């Protein structure tokens, strides 16, 4: 490897180029000016100027989740770094690989409360996988290479490299990615073959099996998704997924039960509750999934495939823990299971499917669109109907009721097509995320299904969408309420709607126009299709303000503190006192 002398600022750009980075989301400021000067003097990396650093991280998350490559962010010191904290935390919770480069005040001023100084590595220590404060230019290249290595290996996640301004100006020796010391961070990818064999045996004898898959399958890569599909199709077992894992197994696949969890489908949750073998592939028994832990799937043997050893036995005890990368483990599992004759207890599994089909008859997502007031489910259903055949569709969401309805009514048939804030539940995630997705896929159809309250949290990014001519479709279900908050207040706070609506919403059509984008407003069910078609036809950023029923609740729902088999199905169900005191303390 040839060693070159260059400034720290140049090293940053060179290192990004060496890692194949083509887009950086960022916002300049005093402490990163030398790096911005280098960005200016090259053409290989495109820089997208966001309007707020939180937006930069979410955009990078959208980029990362839709491509499988790390998202890169460049921000200044102090407020630049602190504004990115929410995005980093979001990426940590949802295992999204992000490399954030932040400027810092010069080394000789650190600790002096200098202008725009913040203890960035201190603040971001708990919200990154790892972070580095680089105090010598000679150490800079290896730190950046190590940052990419840590972000992408093992369970992916955000990392941060904090670079004081004097380190950017000074010259040092650049080493390439191959020469950097990254060896000691090498999480195990191969699963324990004895446990894999035990799981293969369990698959042979299981009578009521279920695959419970999560975002880990998608993070593991396309090979993992292919292997999962093979395994599901060959065994004939039912498969459900978390919010993060949608698309790993196709929604139009014949073994698909739909999403599980708090707002998951009735048949998926009951199957989880009554199964005798649960095969968790890359999910983490989140509290939105388990409900009441003591009553979670009481009769099942549980297998758990996860690359993160700390996910095993954290919440739910697992009889068959397999630490490893999903693709590696599934490959071994398929091999072992096939070599043993690829057997299942087919008659028992057939009976299991009959039971599941009985549950399906409840048709837990059914609703009626009567009259002109648009029901939000109807709007999403029409959006799905009019876009599902698009060859290159990506869906982002904000956080709340609309997010759950999108997960319920929209089908992801491929991985990396669904961008949503699952673990952290960050309102304001969807819009900047859609910008990141569109940057990575300029010709694709990118739709952000939003609520008006979430959307307003990062509405400033409209400027970014217009500046870079990104034709992102903002599909806003406007109920003039914080719908999910309102729903919980109805269910467990005596219908006292404390601060869950805003009285001064903007006119979204005028708002779009003020940014130089297009705005469409729909308030009659009869006009929904035309509105959606107009949105799709417009070649540029567009807001569709869809005014919907204000008091709609999101069902089905497992009330907090209850097990899977105690679901509320809809308005007809008795929702009074559905949540007991012990459940009310949960969120």
């Amino acid at each position, binding site marked *: 490897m040839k060693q070159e002398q260059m400034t720290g600022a140049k090293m940053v750009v060179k290192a990004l180029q060496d890692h194949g980075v083509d887009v950086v989301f960022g916002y300049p400021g005093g402490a990163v000016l030398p790096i911005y000067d280098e960005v200016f003097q090259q053409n290989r990396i495109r820089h997208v100027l966001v309007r707020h650093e939180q937006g930069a991280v979410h955009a990078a998350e959208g980029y990362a989740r839709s491509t499988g490559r790390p998202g890169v962010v460049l921000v200044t010191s102090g407020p630049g770094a602190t504004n990115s904290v929410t995005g980093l935390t979001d990426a940590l919770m949802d295992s999204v690989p992000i490399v954030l480069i932040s400027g810092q005040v010069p080394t000789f001023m650190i600790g002096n409360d200098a202008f725009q100084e913040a203890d960035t*590595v*201190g603040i971001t*220590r*708990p919200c990154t*996988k*790892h972070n580095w*404060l680089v105090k010598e230019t000679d150490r800079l290249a290896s730190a950046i290479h190590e940052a990419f290595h*840590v972000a992408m290996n093992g369970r992916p996640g955000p990392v941060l490299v904090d670079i004081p301004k004097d380190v950017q100006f000074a010259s040092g020796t650049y080493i390439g990615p191959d020469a950097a010391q990254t060896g*000691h*961070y090498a999480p195990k990818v191969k699963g324990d073959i*004895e*446990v894999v064999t*035990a799981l293969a*045996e*369990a698959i042979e*004898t*299981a*009578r009521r099996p279920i695959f419970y898959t999560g975002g880990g399958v998608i993070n593991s890569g396309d090979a993992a998704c292919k292997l999962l599909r093979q395994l599901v199709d060959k065994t004939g077992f039912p498969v459900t997924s978390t919010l993060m894992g949608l698309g790993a197994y196709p929604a139009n696949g014949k073994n698909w039960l739909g999403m599980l969890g708090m707002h998951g489908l009735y048949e998926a949750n009951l199957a989880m509750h009554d199964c*005798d*073998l649960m095969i968790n592939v890359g999910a983490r028994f989140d509290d939105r999934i388990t409900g009441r832990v003591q009553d979670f799937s009481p*009769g*099942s*043997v549980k297998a758990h495939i996860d690359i*993160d*050893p*700390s996910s*095993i*036995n*954290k919440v739910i*005890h697992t*009889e*068959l*823990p397999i630490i490893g990368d999903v693709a590696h483990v599934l490959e071994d599992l398929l091999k072992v299971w096939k070599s043993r004759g690829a057997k299942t*207890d087919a008659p028992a599994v057939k009976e299991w499917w009959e039971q599941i089909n009985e549950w399906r008859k409840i048709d837990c997502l059914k609703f009626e669109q009567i009259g002109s007031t648009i029901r939000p489910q109807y709007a999403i259903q029409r959006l799905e109907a009019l876009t599902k055949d698009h060859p290159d569709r990506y869906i982002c969401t904000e956080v709340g009721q609309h997010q759950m309805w999108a997960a319920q009514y929209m089908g992801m048939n491929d991985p990396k097509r669904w961008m949503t804030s699952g673990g952290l539940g960050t309102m304001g995630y969807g819009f900047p995320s859609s910008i990141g997705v569109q940057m990575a896929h300029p010709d694709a159809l990118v739709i952000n299904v939003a609520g008006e309250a979430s959307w307003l949290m990062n509405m400033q990014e409209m400027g970014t969408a217009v500046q870079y001519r990104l034709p992102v479709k903002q599909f806003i279900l406007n109920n003039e309420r914080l719908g999910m908050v309102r729903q919980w207040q109805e269910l467990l706070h005596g219908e006292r709607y404390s601060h869950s609506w805003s009285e001064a919403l903007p006119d979204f059509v005028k708002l779009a126009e003020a940014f130089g984008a297009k705005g469409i407003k729909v308030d009659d069910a009869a006009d929904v299709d035309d509105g959606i078609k107009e949105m799709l036809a417009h070649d540029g950023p567009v807001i569709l303000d869809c005014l919907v029923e204000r008091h709609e609740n999101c069902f089905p729902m497992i009330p907090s503190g209850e097990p899977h088999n105690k679901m509320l199905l809809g308005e007809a169900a008795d929702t009074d006192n559905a949540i007991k005191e012990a459940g009310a303390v949960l969120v």
Partner: protein
Amino acid sequence: MSPLNIKKGSSSHSAYDLRDYHEQGTERHTLALIVDNEAGVLARVIGLFSGRGYNIESLTVAEIDHTGHRSRITVVTTGTPSVIEQIKAQLGRVVPVHDVHDLTTEGVAVERELALFRVVGKGDVRVEALRLADIFRAQVVDSTLDSFVFEVTGTSSKIDAFAELMRPLGLEELARTGVVALARGEIDAEIGMA
């Protein structure tokens, strides 16, 4: 009943692992971590304990290998068996942490703590303090006409016991290092000078 061959609630860790993971008894464990000696590594470890609500009973840290930039952190913690397992798994995820050893479960370990006691008094109590110090094999490391500083090395319980005895004899100030520990017997290459 499940026809599967795996016993519900069994563990694949070891056939001899008879712990019940659902029982809630609290255990005390001594963990030894080999970490990169770099800025912020201690903050990462402590932040993990405070952020996730784990206990720290004692903590010691010092560089053990200057050329290899390695430090050893000894943490004494308490928790239910499942919490202890989770602590070890979480520590293992921290990038500059190379090894996590649970000295409480990995065979027998020697645990030692050093403490300094300032005992102030005259006459009979002074004589009694000196006599007890002798029994505990304490060193006198400083002396004035009406005070001693004793140095005691031993297990934490020995230091507790000595402190209890010194209290009525004029114990004014006490400083403890926290526990350091090593596995007994043949050295495990990884836990030594890595």
